């Protein structure tokens, strides 16, 4: 009996085991997935929790309920992977063997990596919204926040769902306006990047979003520490950004077991071939979803498209054939802009987000890089699709590879 072992039952891991269970004979292959608990989170929902649009119950389910029959689910903490013996040790002493291993343990916000972040002001005036606890605590804090400096901050790239901090900023702006408080609140967006928008077409098409909402911008900002007493971010070049309410995206890192196993880079992400997701060090190990070091967005859509390429490739690989699928870095993301509208972006490794229409069989055209109500409805409808179509491993009526159909080609796309 051959063994496929998947570490992580999140978006990528769940889709992988559910898709492959249909293709791998139960007599020939066992499929096991490991995670540390039995709660699957619909993470895009965290964005809306602070504004009361979702309840915690709507964004969580039992992992058991999302896994197909015939998939073994092991709850436990991974201690380390021993690639030399093809085994995984759990911290409770159990050992799991594998023929093929998929690391799908994602990325985790690490407030402990910035001095001052986890101290007295954590969850008092400093919040994250990338965890259920953080997002829920922030919802409570926003209820009593009626004036002062609201700072939205990104510690460093890469981060999970790179547009979420912008979306949060837009939603906070709209929410404060609705409550008649916007004039009493300064909103400052602090980023380590050279701008809120860094791609040429996006900068041109979307620059107005911040100006129109009177959101101040602090760029090239590398936080060194938080001055807890004076409630201020302090950067390596000694710029101070005071806050009354700080919504930060802590440093994102891959799982610690990846580092303990010697399989990660400096942020514990697994170096892989960006087209096959195969580990550069071990041909029987793959890393899919946020856990890998591919230069694509850490996002559910990327995980979804990558899983489709990987599962087809995997079936070829175990049949002794060359893997013919090549992942192109395809991402497709809605960006909430407040007031019941959203934008849509569709891009890959080589093509930046462009304007135009996103043609979908059945769903119809959606507008790219433009605020529309239809895009917002698409984003809100996605929660149902996630639980009922994506996680079970059914195919979506969208192409895996990015397509140029409907897009307005850029005249200044960088040369290869």
């Amino acid at each position, binding site marked *: 009996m051959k063994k496929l072992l998947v570490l992580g039952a999140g978006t990528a891991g769940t889709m992988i085991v559910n898709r492959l269970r249909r293709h791998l004979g139960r007599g020939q292959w066992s499929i096991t997935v490991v995670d540390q608990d039995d709660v699957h989170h619909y993470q895009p929902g965290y964005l809306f929790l602070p504004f009361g649009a979702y309840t915690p119950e709507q964004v969580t389910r039992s992992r058991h309920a999302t896994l197909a029959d015939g998939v073994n689910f092991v709850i436990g903490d991974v201690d380390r992977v021993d690639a030399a013996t093809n085994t995984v040790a759990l911290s409770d002493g159990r050992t799991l063997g594998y023929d093929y291993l998929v690391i799908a343990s994602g990325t985790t916000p690490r407030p402990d990596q910035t001095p001052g972040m986890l101290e007295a002001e954590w969850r008092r005036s400093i919040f994250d919204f990338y965890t259920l606890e953080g997002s829920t605590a922030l919802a409570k804090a926003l209820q009593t926040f009626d004036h002062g400096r609201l700072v939205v901050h990104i510690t460093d790239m890469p981060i999970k769902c*790179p547009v979420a901090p912008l979306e949060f900023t837009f939603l906070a702006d709209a929410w404060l306006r609705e409550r008649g408080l916007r004039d009493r609140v300064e909103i400052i967006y602090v980023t380590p*990047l*050279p701008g809120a928008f860094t791609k040429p077409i*996006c900068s041109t098409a*979307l620059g107005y979003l911040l100006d129109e909402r009177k959101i101040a911008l602090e760029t090239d900002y590398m936080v060194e520490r938080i001055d807890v007493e004076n409630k201020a971010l302090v950067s390596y*070049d000694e710029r101070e950004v005071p806050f009354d309410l700080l919504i930060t995206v802590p440093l994102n890192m891959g799982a610690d077991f990846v580092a303990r196993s010697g399989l990660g880079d400096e942020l514990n992400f697994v170096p892989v071939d960006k087209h096959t997701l195969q580990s550069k060090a071990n041909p029987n190990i793959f890393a899919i979803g946020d856990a890998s070091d591919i*230069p694509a967005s850490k996002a559910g859509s990327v995980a979804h498209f990558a899983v489709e390429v990987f599962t087809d490739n995997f079936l070829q690989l175990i049949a002794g054939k060359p893997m013919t699928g090549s992942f192109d870095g395809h991402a497709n993301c809605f960006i909430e802009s407040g007031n019941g509208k959203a934008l849509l972006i569709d891009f890959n490794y080589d093509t930046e987000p462009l304007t135009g229409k996103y043609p979908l069989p059945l769903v119809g055209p959606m507008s790219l890089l433009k605020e529309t109500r239809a895009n917002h409805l698409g984003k809100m409808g996605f929660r149902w699709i996630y639980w009922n179509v994506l996680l079970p491993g059914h195919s979506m009526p969208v192409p895996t590879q990015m397509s140029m159909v409907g897009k307005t080609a850029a005249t*200044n796309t960088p040369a290869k």
Partner: protein
Amino acid sequence: MPVTTFNGQQIHVNEEGFLTDPSEWDDGLATALGEQIGITLTDEHWKAIRFLRKDFEEVGETPTLRRVSTVGGIPIKTLFVLFPQKPAKKMAYVAGLPKPHGCV
């Protein structure tokens, strides 16, 4: 895509002046690009630039300041002194690599 003659050689650049073909880069060009933004390259600058070039070749992406610090061994504070105000962008410019970017 604009083609410009710089330091006596033809190079392809984007609208911000960043090289779009890293293979057109050489040491002489780096010195000239540095001068363009008011930076005279010292050995310390070169250490950072060499790391950027090597890392880009291996990983396919311009490294972040944190990566230059933890993997390349040059503290972030030093990078802000060597390439004032916008070290990530300035280092990439001089090293002939794409500037650090987000997804939008």
